[in-house]
């Protein structure tokens, strides 16, 4: 029990300071995929949550490049990075077949969000626009009736 606590404390420490390597790679990869064009290390750093050291970002970028996840070209004195897309579109096809194959793929895939009804969508807009509490209460009592 104590060991588990220590582990968690350790992970929490990593989260706040030096995040785990795999998680950092994911963050950088996600940031580059979300961007519109090639990004320099400095630009990537701005797109990352938290406050990472520039050299850390550089290290991760070159590691991802070594793994074939990124392509890069010279820009000024450094490189601009872009996700390698050919593999990813191939993967997309495979994943779609995975999602569409079999009636209960839910068994395996924990999806981030499930489908919304029209009512849910309305409710969600209210919740996210900041004055969620009061309208949601109204909504809930409406539904009960």
């Amino acid at each position: 029990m104590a060991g588990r606590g220590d582990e968690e404390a350790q992970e929490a420490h990593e989260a706040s300071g030096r995040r785990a390597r795999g998680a950092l790679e994911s963050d950088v990869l996600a940031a580059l995929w979300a961007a519109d064009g090639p990004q320099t290390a400095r630009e990537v750093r701005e797109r990352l949550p938290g406050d990472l050291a520039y050299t850390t970002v550089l290290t991760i970028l070159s590691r991802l490049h070594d793994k074939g996840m990124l392509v890069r070209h010279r820009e000024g004195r450094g490189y601009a990075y872009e996700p390698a897309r050919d593999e990813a579109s191939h993967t997309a096809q495979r994943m779609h077949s995975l999602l569409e194959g079999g009636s209960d793929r839910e068994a395996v895939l924990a999806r981030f969000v499930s489908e919304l009804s029209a009512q849910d969508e309305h409710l969600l807009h209210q919740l996210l626009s900041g004055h969620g509490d009061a309208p949601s209460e109204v909504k809930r009592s409406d539904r009960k009736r």
Partner: protein
Amino acid sequence: MLVSVYIPFLVTATLAVLAPPAARRLPPRPAAWALACAALVTAAGWAGSLALLAFTGLAQIPQIAAEGRWSVAALRSEDPVYFVVAAGSTLALAAGLVALGVAAVRQGRHLVRAWRECAELPGRTELAVLDDDAPLAFALPGAPGRIVVSRGMLRCLGADEREALLAHERAHLRGRHHVFQSVWRLTAALNPLLRPVAVAGNFVLERWADEEAAERVGDRTVVAHAVGRAALASAGAPRSAALAVTGGAVPQRVRALLAPPPARRSLPLLAGGLLLVVCCASLANAASDSDRMLDSAQWALCTTRTGTAAPAPTGQDQGQGQDQGRDHGPDGCRGGHDRPELRRAALLTGRSPGP
């Protein structure tokens, strides 16, 4: 036997009704564990009770009684289980076991496929991005598990929200949530009454991952916005109806994240635990009753065959502690018949066969 064999059914029904709403209000991690324990124990209790009822019914069929060397008349005079109940239990048990087998094969196949996909996804990174505009994100269990997110999903989120999304999926993988899901699926296949538990369980897993992501990111609102924005983006995107799952879950998750973290409460967990103990105890009691009943039915057959006037044990008074007394039966009966039955009785109760 009369009452105790039915108590596991009662406990299952009670938990199937009360546990899902309670679990939604508890902190998600203990709630998920509680639901998994409840599903496992009640499924075992359910199957055990059905098996006992089915067995007492089958034992009254003359051919089976002849095989087991016990007296049908004695059994019938004692046994309060109607034949209809026994037949129904047999059918329910058979149907449940078939459904469990089918579900287990299917679940195993899915896990194997996910495992294989994990290995075949390109790159040696935790995150695999799909070059696809439709917003999509899920965790794929494997060794190691992978997080799969589409470009469309990444583009609709801000930097902090992307981190929240990744932390959420990471929590699914780290917590081995697919094991919980498997437990609920399989138990619900065995006993359809447990389906609400499975539905609530899946919701609780999402909440668990949300809470862990909120801890990681350090801001509950960021996670709430990530979930909400991803859901709205998904709702706007054209996609197959096959992706539809439980409606209404996302607003509940967002509302829970916008509220303070749920308070720790032990009373519902204690109450649930107590119910599970009652379920186990009554099943054990019913099993020993059934064992005693068969023993005395065997005795009845022995005494009629050997024609001795030895006082036959009256079934009702024959407690568990009086096994010794029964061993001094007429020698002809003892040597000729008793061994297989004792072994069978021992199987039922876990007692070792007599000398």
